[in-house]
């Protein structure tokens, strides 16, 4: 059954879109990740214009992060003050990201920006995750307890000026690092159509030293607002948010995530992470190959309106 996507200006199969939402939602529930970094490339692979894929996926993530964040909120596992600081940086970052996006779109380079960002981030994250999970698997096979790696001391970063007390996280640190982290994630969110949890969560644990029990909730809290800002900014600046597409992905995504979470609890953590790492590296390779090999069609058309 076909449906017309009014902003993408193309017809797509409803079952395919809901199915993709469900599959990625299932994986995100199973692995405990957002899923934007898998969904946006998949949308591009089925022919959705990359700029529309990014903006509409940001819109979908609003739904999945509200859905996931609600439970953490009710358990009071959200550091609201930290969330607001990260969010301020994030909204500034998403503004910068959308402006960059708009500029490169006018120059015809936005597809390249999206692909390159994905290739770089997916390779790094996938590579690190694969190494870490393979190491963990080897250690458990040998019967050794997994050593929790103590990251190096970064405390000088946290002792920068403008310190603030974060009661929920039991921290008294400078607001500069969380503002910068928020900014960076905001830029990535605008360019890649992701929530950015894959950067935010490690940064909160290793750089900001936040206690793990508030990390996921706080990350989701700020993702809700930053992806909302990204959605609104893309709608205003680029008119690339396809609500029909986003809603179809939401339907599949939120339902898939619920089932994924159930399955995920029955599987071994490190093997799960190795599997996710392989999927991430697979997507990165496909995007890289598409950039390296000569495309069948060297020309592309962009409608410019009647502009007299």
């Amino acid at each position, binding site marked *: *059954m*076909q*449906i*017309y996507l*009014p*902003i993408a*200006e*193309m*017809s797509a199969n409803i079952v395919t879109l809901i199915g993709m939402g469900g599959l990625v939602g299932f994986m995100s529930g199973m692995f405990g990740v957002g899923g934007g970094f898998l969904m946006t490339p998949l949308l591009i692979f089925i022919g959705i214009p990359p700029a529309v894929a990014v903006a509409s996926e940001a*819109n*979908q993530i*609003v*739904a*999945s*992060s*509200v*859905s*996931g964040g*609600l*439970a953490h909120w009710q358990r009071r596992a959200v550091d609201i003050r930290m969330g607001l600081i990260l969010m301020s940086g994030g909204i500034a970052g998403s503004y910068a990201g959308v402006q960059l996006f708009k500029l490169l779109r*006018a*120059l*015809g*380079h936005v*597809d*390249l920006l999206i692909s390159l960002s994905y290739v770089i981030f997916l390779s790094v994250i996938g590579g690190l995750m694969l190494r870490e999970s393979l190491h963990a698997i080897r250690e458990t096979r040998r019967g050794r307890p997994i050593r929790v790696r103590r990251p190096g001391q970064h405390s000088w970063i946290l002792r920068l000026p403008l310190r603030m007390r974060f009661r929920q996280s039991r921290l008294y640190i400078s607001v500069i690092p969380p503002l910068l982290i928020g900014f960076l994630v905001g830029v990535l969110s605008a360019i890649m159509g992701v929530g950015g949890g894959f950067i935010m969560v490690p940064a909160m644990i290793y750089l900001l030293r936040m206690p793990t029990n508030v990390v996921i909730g706080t990350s989701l809290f700020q993702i809700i607002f930053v992806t*909302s800002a990204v*959605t*609104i*900014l*893309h*709608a*205003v600046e680029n*008119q690339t*948010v396809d*609500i*029909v597409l*986003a*809603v179809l992905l*939401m*339907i599949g995504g*939120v*339902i898939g995530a*619920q089932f994924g979470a159930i399955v995920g609890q029955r599987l071994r953590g490190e093997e799960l992470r190795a599997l996710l790492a392989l999927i991430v590296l697979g997507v990165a390779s496909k995007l890289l190959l598409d*950039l*390296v*090999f*000569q*495309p069948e*069609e*060297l*020309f*592309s*058309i*962009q*409608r*410019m*309106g*009647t*502009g007299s």
Partner: protein
Amino acid sequence: MTHKTLLFRCVLGLLGMMGTIPTAHANALVADLSKDQIRVASNFTGEKILLFGAIETTATQGASDVVVVVRGPAENFTLRQKKRVAGIWVNAEALTLGPLPGYYAVASTRPLDEIAPVSERAKHEIGPENLRFNLLEDIAQKPDSAAHPDDGTQAEDGALYHDSFVRIKSQQKLYSVDPTGVRIIGARLFRAELTLPSGLPFGTYITEFFLFQDGRVIGYQTGELSVEITGLEHLLQVAAHDMPLLYGLFGVFIAGVMGWGVATLFRRV
């Protein structure tokens, strides 16, 4: 029937301009469409239209041919060419062409080159290769004119870009040439079936019917066809462009409601 009167005046005016066609043959061709409005809703996957009419061939020598052209609203298009830079393929050069129709279909009783000489086809813009367009300066891309020093390369580039434009549009089924798409029935009636694909540009389309004899146009009629987006899709498309802030807020609102709704639902189950 003001519509028909207007059409008739158009035909007369056009015939007058062409001069060579005797006015006695003004009604050598009468044609119409099966529908004059296409509504694109969420389930739109393309639609067939029937173009039909009658011809009157007084001259006995020489075969009569009918050519039917449907063209969508004209727009400007930026074409970008990918080149390899540092091992990856990136958009390197761009040209803006226009105005060109966003949709163009031609159907005929025989291959076009058998019906009329190039000059005649070019005059009536019959066939995608005969569409007239301008090379427009690319506002964003080319602050330096050094990339295109003289008009010769400009024209060459124009042809290359135009060929590529037609090729891509044909792949998208938005440009088509059907050399056997028009059937003549009993030397008097003709019919052509055209399948409009999904992804049609919206606006007013122009239909043109030509009656050719001995390589010359002896009958002509033109008409209109409107392609409109309707329903929720229409509302969303208008809102996205005219009220983008409200549209964005609406997207966020829906996402919030859906996320909250599903989370609540699953907790109860």
